[in-house]
């Protein structure tokens, strides 16, 4: 820092104000706060029916109640476990099968019809079948997350492996690289940006899988909580669940994007 301050050329550049540097956050954040304030005002003034809607303070109150006395923590842990196992397995399986199918043309020809059929089917349509196979316990939930998150990783990995730069392959061969060396130094690193795009999509779709899976059968998790709240007209519970899911979605997508950018720092368009 001291060198920058002592440098006459650099210090001449006008320093942007706090507002200029954080304009997006300040404008966006203010808008959200204003919206919540209006909502809270309407709720306090009694202009909102608690049967159909709710207010921010009620959601917060509900959250504190459920967190301290209810089973919110257990539900969160349950959903979190489903998500981590399902998405983790999907990433692992998606990358491995994607690399194999992307690299070996004949395997691609064999498996493509099955993958296309499965990929084109809305995954929700498979849920009754999954319940028959796995029961209503945790493994059916995990599998629903898995099948949601698997395809984006698979498809993107295949694309990444297929787009391997021919010039780089030639250079690697010229330097006597073994097949394994070519795979680890050329094919895999080249596919990483694609794989991470797949992971980002898998995280978003996996979250949908968690919620949807818990709505079908079972009696635990955030999805179940939202569903049950709706059936019993606990509007503030439903809202609380939706807010938690939205928050999880934002945080997870942000993390995935961070990771994507970290691994793409060699790219010219940073």
């Amino acid at each position: 820092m001291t060198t920058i301050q002592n440098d006459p050329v650099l210090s001449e550049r006008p320093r942007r104000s706090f507002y200029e540097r954080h304009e997006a956050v300040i404008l966006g954040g203010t808008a959200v706060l204003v919206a919540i304030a209006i909502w809270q005002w309407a709720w306090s003034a009694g202009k909102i029916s608690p049967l159909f809607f709710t207010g921010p303070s009620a959601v917060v109150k509900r959250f504190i109640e459920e967190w301290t006395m209810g089973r919110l923590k257990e539900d969160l842990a349950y959903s979190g476990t489903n998500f981590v196992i399902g998405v983790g397995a999907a990433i692992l399986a998606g990358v491995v099968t994607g690399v194999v199918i992307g690299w070996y043309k004949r395997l691609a020809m064999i498996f493509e019809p099955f993958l296309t059929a499965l990929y084109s089917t809305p995954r929700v349509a498979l849920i009754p079948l999954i319940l028959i196979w796995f029961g209503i316990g945790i493994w059916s939930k995990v599998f629903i997350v898995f099948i949601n998150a698997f395809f984006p990783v698979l498809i993107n990995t295949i694309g990444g492996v297929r787009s391997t730069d021919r010039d780089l392959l030639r250079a690697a061969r010229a330097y006597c690289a073994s097949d394994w060396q070519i795979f680890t130094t050329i094919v895999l690193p080249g596919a990483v940006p694609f794989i991470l795009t797949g992971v980002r999509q898998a995280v978003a779709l996996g979250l949908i899988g968690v919620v949807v899976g818990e709505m079908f059968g079972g009696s635990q998790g955030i999805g179940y909580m939202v569903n049950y709240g709706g059936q019993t007209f606990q509007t503030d519970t439903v809202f609380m669940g939706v807010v938690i899911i939205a928050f999880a979605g934002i945080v997870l997508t942000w993390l995935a994007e961070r990771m994507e950018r970290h691994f793409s720092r060699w790219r010219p368009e940073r």
Partner: protein
Amino acid sequence: MIEIERLTKRYYVERDGRQVLALSEVSLTVRDGEFMAIVGPSGCGKTTLLNIVAGLIPYDLGSLSIDGTRIVGPGVDRAVVFQHSSLLPWRTIAGNVRYGMEMQKRFDASTMRERTEYFLKLVGLTGFDKHYPSELSGGMQQRVNLARALAADPAVLLMDEPFAALDAQTREFMQAELLKIWSQARKTVLFITHQINEAVYLADRVAVMSARPGHVKGIFDIPFERPRQLSLKRDPRFLQLEDAIWQLVEETPERIGMARTAS
């Protein structure tokens, strides 16, 4: 020593199964420590010849050996500088210079580090080791490409139109740089180009190839002493030699794509 004897390479045109003779009985000997340039119009098979010598594609007839050993594939005795830099974009400059050595596993880690540093310095890129290729200009990328090849310590350096993608000024500068580097790391060089003037300036001998089928039409000795200055390109003897080579090329109708003077 590279010995190429009656080398023949056929291609089959995918569309109609027609056979194309890419190389027909090409014979060429490159002596140890010699800088040999091959000029010829595009499509004369000069890049095919280089790829065969590199062991990247097979040949059909004839024989090909380096220091008496028959070539059947890529080997640690050769290194290639490609036209497009073909650097790994996710590796730093140091990582790219190390790449060839890493693949060939001939040096231990500390030797690789020393050699990386040494050859980065030789090509004038000290201080750029932590940069990524996308942050470098085309000329600098080709220096990295050259450093990667030299660091692998080959007996033979194969260069496939390494400066063709650069602008005229950078190309001139890189030619001079290459001569300087070559004078320090004396290697046998096989240099492919479509620029006669580049070939005459750099090489000890220039082989002229013509197309359909590709074969060697003639070989010129380049008598100019080293070190050579860029002003040599304006020397009457230089221009005379350039002209003589041009005339041999001109005898063939396939001279499209040849550059007589580009700078």
